[in-house]
């Protein structure tokens, strides 16, 4: 299917000019369009041009696809005031770019007559899509890649809130260092993170003596309060997800070797198991085996894209003109 690829500019509600690339197939569907949301610093292009590849594939399916830079990112106007990257990510995780996303939908509606939207994105783009979906009914579904459930910031010791999976990987690396002279030197010169070493070993011991239930209770319970799930859990995440899932569809794709998947499992799925049980028929979760956070390898990108295309075909076939 032939497509036009054009740069577009539109104004946000704050009168900040935002910049994007629109992929428009010849026979574009007008009932529903896709907006791919910036992962964070890496703009409308995303790591290794992942969004360009996604847009091409979705465009071949007949969807009009917009990739745009929110304020302060890529080529758009505006500035990011945060001085640390972690603080910037934290601001995205609580909705920094939600209004820009709503403004992008308004522009697509006005210029191209599209009234329903599939929001897609990696990491920061996924959480922006989820939070937008919770506040705007035009969001018909979410395709979230590696969605974060925590809040980043520059002052928190993220080591304190590591998941069991992360601690186990760390433990493996500490064991390898037992034979390394430099590591012993660091250890003896008080340069090592003793707290982290201790936590990683304790986690393994707990696991070995079959104390998983106790661990689970320590790290959270079904009431799902943020203190029980670890202080860096994003309280907006479960609220937004359950709101989206009350009537709309969600596909979450995770990378098998990504800490974000472990965090999703340990900080959301386990503590919120009662709520999750109610929605598990609507939410779809797909794991790309061995993949890293940004789907670096072609085979991982292919797997992720096939999962996305299958899900889109299932929910938005041309014959049905989308779900009712």
């Amino acid at each position: 299917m032939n497509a036009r690829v054009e740069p577009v500019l539109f104004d946000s509600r704050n009168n900040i000019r935002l910049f994007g690339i629109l992929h428009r197939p010849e026979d574009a569907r007008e009932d529903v369009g896709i907006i791919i949301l910036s992962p964070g610093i890496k703009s409308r292009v995303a790591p290794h041009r992942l969004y360009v590849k996604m847009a091409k594939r979705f465009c071949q399916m007949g969807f009009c696809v917009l990739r745009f830079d929110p304020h302060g990112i890529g080529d758009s106007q505006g500035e990011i005031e945060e001085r640390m990257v972690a603080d910037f990510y934290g601001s995205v995780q609580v909705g920094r770019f939600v209004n820009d996303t709503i403004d992008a939908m308004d522009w697509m509606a006005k210029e191209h007559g599209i009234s329903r939207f599939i929001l897609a994105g990696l990491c920061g783009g996924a959480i922006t899509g989820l939070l937008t979906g919770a506040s705007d009914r035009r969001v018909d579904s979410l395709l979230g890649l590696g969605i974060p459930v925590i809040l980043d910031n520059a002052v928190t010791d993220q080591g304190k809130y590591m998941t069991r999976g992360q601690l186990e990987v760390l433990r493996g690396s500490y064991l390898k260092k037992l034979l390394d002279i430099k590591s012993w030197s660091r250890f003896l010169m008080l340069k090592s993170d003793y707290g982290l070493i201790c936590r990683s070993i304790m986690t393994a011991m707990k696991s070995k003596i079959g104390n998983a239930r106790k661990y689970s209770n320590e790290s959270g319970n079904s009431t799902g309060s943020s203190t029980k799930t670890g202080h860096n859990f994003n309280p907006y995440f479960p609220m937004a997800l359950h709101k989206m899932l009350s009537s709309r569809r969600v596909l979450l794709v995770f990378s098998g070797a990504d800490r974000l998947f472990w965090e999703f499992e340990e900080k959301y799925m386990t503590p919120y198991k009662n709520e999750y049980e109610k929605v598990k028929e609507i939410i779809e979760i797909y794991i790309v085996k061995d993949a890293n956070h940004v789907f670096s390898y072609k085979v991982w990108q292919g797997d992720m894209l096939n999962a996305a295309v299958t899900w889109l075909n299932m929910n938005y076939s041309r014959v049905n003109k989308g779900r009712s």
Partner: protein
Amino acid sequence: MLGLSISTDSVRKFGSLQKDNMQEIPFFFHNENYRLFGVLHEAKKLPRKEGFVFCAPFAEEKLWAHRVMVNFARELAVRGYPVLRFDYMGNGDSEGEFEESSLETILSDTECATRTLMAQVRDVESVNLLGLRLGGTVAALVAESAAKVNKLILWEPILNGASYMREMLRVNLSTQTAVYKKILHNTDDLVRMMKEGKTVNVDGYEMAWPLYEQVEKIDLLERSKTCDIPALIVQICRKEKYVNPLLAKLKEKCSIIHIDISVEEPFWKEIRHYYSKANNLYQVTLNWLEQDER
């Protein structure tokens, strides 16, 4: 062949981003059979006769450094310099696949961007090239053949292509270690695979043999033509320290080159600080431009 599609039509069609004394026009232009994406930053008042073409760094370094380049283009534009930023074929929003790119296509794209800037902005009589990292190297190479290049500004350029390509292969080894917990293919294997027509993954970019081979052969110290054009080379480091001995050697060969040091974080890679502007680097560069005018 130039397949230009901007100027007034483009402004009407896509709109432009206007701020202070400049406007920004995104557009596609043709280099032979593919389209390159660019953004033209134009001064609205007192446009100068010298324009700038920015040469982007390699692969993912471009994405990390993007905003620093955008903001410097804006700084130059408000001072009257028209600036064209663009994506090489297979990069950013330009057409083509990364694995089809080579140093040859990168040089050709940069020359095309230079012609495009001169064709689009009536007042521009000569072009300055500004490049970061491998983009700096590209700028120096293009300046050897493009007659209208007036000045060169190289920010932390790659002087030796072979060691840079080895660095890129080490990125692949790190990914292998993270994924498989061991190295399945060492650097010799990776080079052999590329020679056999396969690609090697560097941070998600599929690098093919032509790109690797052509960049590997670059040694800026051996290229005497770089000495013919007024050039500023800025060494970027976290703490002010001595000049890189290789740069000092280059300076010995070419007295026309000015070398300066700027204290900045390495904003072309993942760092803890959020970097949208590199004020020290901007100042060093603007000072040199102003001195040259005097």
